[in-house]
């Protein structure tokens, strides 16, 4: 099987290994931030249920848990920030063709006008998609956790 040449998705000569590393780190931070935000929102909502005196058991469904959409709503914020990071990265990749030299002059002489777009957008778009996929997977786990932990009597109607 032919090995994928990642350098084709970035400007020629671009140190994509380093920048992919930064993006991967930012993606990991994004995932962790989502987990922290969800844990915090979930704990806060869960703590308001009707507990017994020593807070070991939920005793009634008098107080309902906040809907999952409300609890998890704030977890999208890191994804939005990461998406903005990807947009900024794409802008910087486009600027790369006019920084220090005008290599855009070469790109404009290529027979395909897709080449420039691919070299500016492919990397950031791939990471943005990874972030979206990670967020969806995390949301699935959050939902499963929500369903498993919140007693049926406290679930919103």
């Amino acid at each position, binding site marked *: 099987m032919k090995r994928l040449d990642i350098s084709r998705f970035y400007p020629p000569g671009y140190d994509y290994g380093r920048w992919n590393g930064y993006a991967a780190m930012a993606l990991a931070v994004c995932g962790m931030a989502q987990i922290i935000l969800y844990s915090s929102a979930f704990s806060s909502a869960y703590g308001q249920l009707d507990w017994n005196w020593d807070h070991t058991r939920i005793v009634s469904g008098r107080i309902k848990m906040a809907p999952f959409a409300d609890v998890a709503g704030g977890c999208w914020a890191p994804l939005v920030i990461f998406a903005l990071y990807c947009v900024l990265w794409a802008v910087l990749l486009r600027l790369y063709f006019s920084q*220090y030299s005008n*290599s855009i002059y070469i790109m404009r002489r290529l027979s395909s006008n897709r080449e420039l777009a691919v070299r500016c957008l492919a990397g950031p778009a791939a990471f943005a998609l990874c972030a979206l996929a990670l967020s969806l997977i995390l949301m699935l786990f959050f939902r499963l956790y929500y369903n498993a932990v919140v007693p049926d009597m406290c679930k919103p109607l």
Partner: protein
Amino acid sequence: MLEINKLNKRFGAKQVLYDIDLKLQPGEIVGLFGENGAGKTTLMKCILGLLRYDGTVRLDGEPITRKNIGRFAFATSEHSFFPDLSAKGHAEFFADHFGTFRQKRFDGLMDFFALPKSKAIRSFSTGQQNQFEVVLALSQGADYIFMDEPFAGNDVFNREDFYKVLVGILEPTETVLLSTHLIEEVSDFVGRAVLIHRGRIVGDSTADELDSKGITLMDYIKETYNYRADRVARALDSINE
């Protein structure tokens, strides 16, 4: 043939090119001469589609599009290489994207200028970067090679030898449009001189026509621009008064 008709260019309110009409035949080596700000670079960029313009530019009767833009190469003192890519990397990129890339010519010119192949171009001196720019333009395999002040910052030996090499390697179908201020150095090299002054073509003559009139390229340029030989003396007089 490259045909430019009624090409006009404005930057905001300022018009920089006026009704440029120019035809370049295959195989011509044309010198484009003019004072700083005359519009030489702007004209080249318009032809290459790097700037918007009014008028028409046609290559063998066809407008310039992505289909035929690869028939042009451009060596510019603004530099158009990829700064972090090595010379070898450039050769691979050009070979990938320009089916006409001339590897043998690339290697030969790299050796001629003694340029390192594995270092990022960013690490080259300005003179070497200019040389590399020319190497790339000549190796692309383009039919029309535009050179805009290609040897700024290069020593006289490199320049003179290069023009000799260039004459030796160019094929009969390759057309060169060369913009430079080093008129005497290229006078034996160019077959035609196009003079541009404040955005207008003010002179266009072949080397044969100049020979038959018995005037040099420098004389032709001075005559066309109404160069006043007493300019320096008058300036010194007025300063020293």
